[in-house]
């Protein structure tokens, strides 16, 4: 008997919860309708993609509310691949991408939505190689990085780089990498290893650009890569040379603009078809001097013409 009454109590509870959910869901369309009718001319631009660019896109979106009241921008991250996937499905207006769109994706997007994605370069990003600030090293070459990160690589301990790393007792290099849905991951692999070689497994694959720098800041044995806008006082950025004979360049605005810094890349935004109306206005504003100022403010490199 006792069991029975408890059971029926539970069922009543479940029914109540379901009923509540039903009421809420049947109410909400009305609410949103009334909001929409209040501001009929207001446009929401959906913007999604690269984690590298998410802070930048957010900053643009925030500044843009002061530029016009007729459009607002909704930004979310998730990775370049996620942004492009959303573009292919037609669920976003602008996809942020820290790599160029792949031909296969371009074709899929055109097929699915009937509109070909249009590419806009909105700034440049220099990938910095980060180490903990106690690491006694200031410069590194691309071939050395390839031996650290690449399959069958020969550099596994700090002494293989010719340094004595007292803050790291095990001497093992802890490789910090990114999850494979990030444009940063693909770009770094291509810059280091070309298209024939893969990353060695066993690296720590972190979720976001900021996490990489944060973890390296706590881990003396670690090395990793992330956008140069994420530097903190706990890490240092290494100067990089393409070969051991070539000059080393630090990841600075000047070196990136002069194209001497070896691992810098353009940042892209993709819109479906030739942009019109609010989307065109937003992209034009991003490419204007005002929009590019924000690029520089966030530690990225603005377009040269500005």
């Amino acid at each position, binding site marked *: 008997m006792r069991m029975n009454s408890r059971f029926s109590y539970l069922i009543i509870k479940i029914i109540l919860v379901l009923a509540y959910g039903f009421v809420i869901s049947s109410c909400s369309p009305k609410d949103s309708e009334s909001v929409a009718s209040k501001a009929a001319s207001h446009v929401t631009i959906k913007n999604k993609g690269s984690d590298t660019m998410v802070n930048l896109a957010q900053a643009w979106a925030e500044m843009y509310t002061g530029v016009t009241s007729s459009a607002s921008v909704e930004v979310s991250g998730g990775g370049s691949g996620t942004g492009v996937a959303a573009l292919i499905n037609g669920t976003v207006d602008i996809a942020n991408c820290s790599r160029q769109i792949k031909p296969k994706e371009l074709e899929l997007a055109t097929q699915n939505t009937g509109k070909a994605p249009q590419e806009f370069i909105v700034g440049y990003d220099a990938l910095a190689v980060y180490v903990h600030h106690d690491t006694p090293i200031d410069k590194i070459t691309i071939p050395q990085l390839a031996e650290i990160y690449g399959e069958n690589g020969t550099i596994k301990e700090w002494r293989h780089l010719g340094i004595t790393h007292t803050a790291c007792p095990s001497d093992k290099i802890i490789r910090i990498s990114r999850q*494979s849905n990030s444009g940063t991951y693909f770009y770094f692999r291509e810059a280091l290893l070309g298209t024939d070689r893969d990353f060695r497994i066993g690296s720590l694959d972190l979720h976001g650009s900021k996490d990489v720098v944060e973890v390296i800041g706590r881990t003396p044995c*670690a090395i990793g890569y992330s956008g140069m806008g994420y530097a903190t006082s706990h890490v240092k950025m290494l100067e990089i040379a393409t070969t051991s004979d070539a000059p080393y360049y630090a990841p600075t605005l000047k070196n990136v603009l002069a194209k001497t810094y070896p691992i810098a890349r353009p940042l892209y935004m993709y819109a479906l078809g030739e942009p019109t109306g609010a989307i065109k206005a937003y992209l034009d504003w991003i490419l204007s001097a005002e929009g590019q100022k924000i690029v520089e403010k966030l530690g990225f490199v603005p377009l040269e013409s500005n």
Partner: protein
Amino acid sequence: MNILRKKSTANLPFSETAIELFIRLCGISSILFVFGIFFFVFREGAGFLFNGLDVKEFLTSVEWQPTSLNNKRYGAFALIVGTFSVTILAMCLAVPFGLGAAVFVSEFCSPKFRETFKIIIELLAAIPSVVWGFIGLTLMNQLIIVVFKAPIGLTMLNGGIMLALMSVPIIVSIAEDALKAVPDSYREAAEALGATRWQVVYRVLLPAAKNGLLAAVLLGAARSIGETMAVLMATGHSVNIPSGPLSWIRTLTATIAAELGEVARGDEHYQVLFIIGILLFTITFVVNLIADLVIKGIRQE
């Protein structure tokens, strides 16, 4: 009096049948959902599973290189080992604490304190897994570095602690229900024979509530195996065969979560992720089956 009663019994059949119909629908829908999900997952992965995937490599190789341009390899062994090792570690931590807390709540604590305690345990269950992951990434990471002198705190231990904290509330509430379901006459009889409180628990209650306790543990384990976000953030997400609790690992669920967003629909990589889904399905099915058999065995004794 008589008229009133008649009225209410005349109304009863309708509400009764309505509720019965509703409950029936709920029951059938859960079966439909399980089969529907299994069908969907299987359909997405089946093409590559039967045609192209090297199953032996999938189950035994540690080479997980799905994004390679020229040499794609789908070896999930490290991911399987990672899932099991972190789950076992989490259970080693969660089962003693969970069952201990359940025994305390149901047998040793005062009724007033009991209610507060249960509310707090339920609060613990309500914390979203991404919050646990964040705690693992920041607080626990630092703690493990300081306490164990590990080079990095994003380890199996970190993930195991997070999973243990997440499954303890489940274990406590189900185990407590199981202990409560033991008739009071058992306790009274044991106490009448002069047993101490601990003897009552150890000799009478635990054996009597065996089935329920086992269900609690298995549901806790299922929660650990299926958990995604917390382990994704706390374990280091590294394809690696662990050599101890301070190694970093990657789990099957975290791999699906991290990579499914990026792959093109119908791609080989996409299908392999669904095959991992089939594998997870099979693992939970086997765990449940074993649990059923064990419980049946206990009943027959």
